[in-house]
């Protein structure tokens, strides 16, 4: 295999481009694809102050690295979710990445700062762990960006993520969500804009980027995500991609080009027209008295009620024998 650009020995094949690349030109491809996504969707301005949502995984560290290489002013924000060793380890990867490159990483901890962690909080609130985790992260990223005066939140969502979400929304015809599949959500109601600059790169490419750039990231999967539908959709799409290279790209980008606009009306009427007021607890914009995160916090931190009335205990072995 030879690199399409320089004809030197290739180290990776990208079948949807029908091309192979050496390390140098593969890294350039990743930066070019990211810059192209930023340009096409007008995601970021050169003067923007950017807050990158960092998990310690490949995608968030790759996007932080690429944005820095492209000359953007980007700080990181990490949320400790309290998922045992997984969270401790992921925090270590995020901190090492930032300190080795002299970048600023802000951190917040769900248990220390809000009184619950994802495993216990989701159970107490009767929510799926991934749902409680996603809600908490979205809220805390928004608040950190508003507090710090950032213009944009950037996440490491890649082509596989977006294609898998699209597949789930199409399978269940979640038309309200189909209106929100664009890789840029403009600033509104006091929330900063949210951008996904890696949408032109697959997970295989972001992982390869990290390996070639010497970025040490958390390879192990989140123990709470095992078996979720999102992963099943990704596996199904990769089975299709194996036989039809470029299928994931066409599925997502042709949806954006040819179908997404048909669902935007739903977004306008459902969300944008509803006036928001500050949450009475935290001040975040919400259409309820308290925001979803404060409602989750209330349920997740509430004490388990004591059962009233006579209780039984198991007899001590000596009592049982007497």
């Amino acid at each position, binding site marked *: *295999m030879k690199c399409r650009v320089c004809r030197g020995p*290739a*180290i*990776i*094949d990208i079948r949807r481009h029908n091309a*192979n690349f050496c*390390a140098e030109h593969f890294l350039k491809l990743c930066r070019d694809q990211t810059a192209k996504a930023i340009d096409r969707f007008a995601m970021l301005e050169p003067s923007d102050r950017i807050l990158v949502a960092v998990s310690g*995984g*490949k*995608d968030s560290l790759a996007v932080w690295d690429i944005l820095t290489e492209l000359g953007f002013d980007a700080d990181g924000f990490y949320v400790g979710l309290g998922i045992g060793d997984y969270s401790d380890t992921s925090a270590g990867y995020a901190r090492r990445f930032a300190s080795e490159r002299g970048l600023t990483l802000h951190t917040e901890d769900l248990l220390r700062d809000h009184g619950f962690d994802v495993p216990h909080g989701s159970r107490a609130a009767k929510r*799926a*762990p*991934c*749902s409680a*985790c*996603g809600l908490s992260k979205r809220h805390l990223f928004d608040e950190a960006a508003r507090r710090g005066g950032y213009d944009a939140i950037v*996440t490491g*969502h890649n082509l*596989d*993520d977006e294609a*898998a979400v699209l597949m789930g929304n199409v399978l269940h015809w979640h038309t309200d969500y189909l209106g929100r599949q664009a890789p840029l959500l403009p600033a509104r109601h006091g929330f900063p804009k949210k951008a996904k600059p890696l949408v032109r790169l*697959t*997970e*295989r490419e*972001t*992982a*390869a980027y990290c*390996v*070639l750039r010497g970025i040490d990231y958390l*390879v*192990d*999967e*989140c123990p*709470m*995500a095992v078996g*979720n539908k*999102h*992963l099943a959709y*990704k*596996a199904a799409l*990769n*089975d299709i*991609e*194996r036989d039809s290279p470029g299928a994931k790209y066409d599925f997502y980008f042709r949806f954006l080009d040819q179908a997404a606009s048909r669902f935007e009306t739903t977004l306008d009427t459902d969300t944008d027209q509803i006036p928001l007021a500050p949450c009475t607890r935290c001040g975040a914009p919400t259409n309820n008295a308290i925001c979803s995160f404060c409602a989750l916090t209330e349920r997740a931190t509430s004490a388990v009620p004591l059962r009233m009335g006579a209780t039984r205990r198991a007899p001590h072995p000596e009592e049982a024998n007497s």
Partner: protein
Amino acid sequence: MKVHLRNPTRELEIEGPITVSALLDQLDLNRESHLVIEDGTLVPADKMLSPHAVIEIRSVISGGER
């Protein structure tokens, strides 16, 4: 050769020489969702791996609700 796999972590002994793509086929692993790494760098699909190679096959799929 020694093959180190992640998610879940396990070690396999595979007979070589064998190409990267044949190895992935033998283990029923999709090339779209795995990287093959030797000596800290990527190895392409047509590379012939020696019987004494030590390699890592890394799954690249991640994510809950993101």
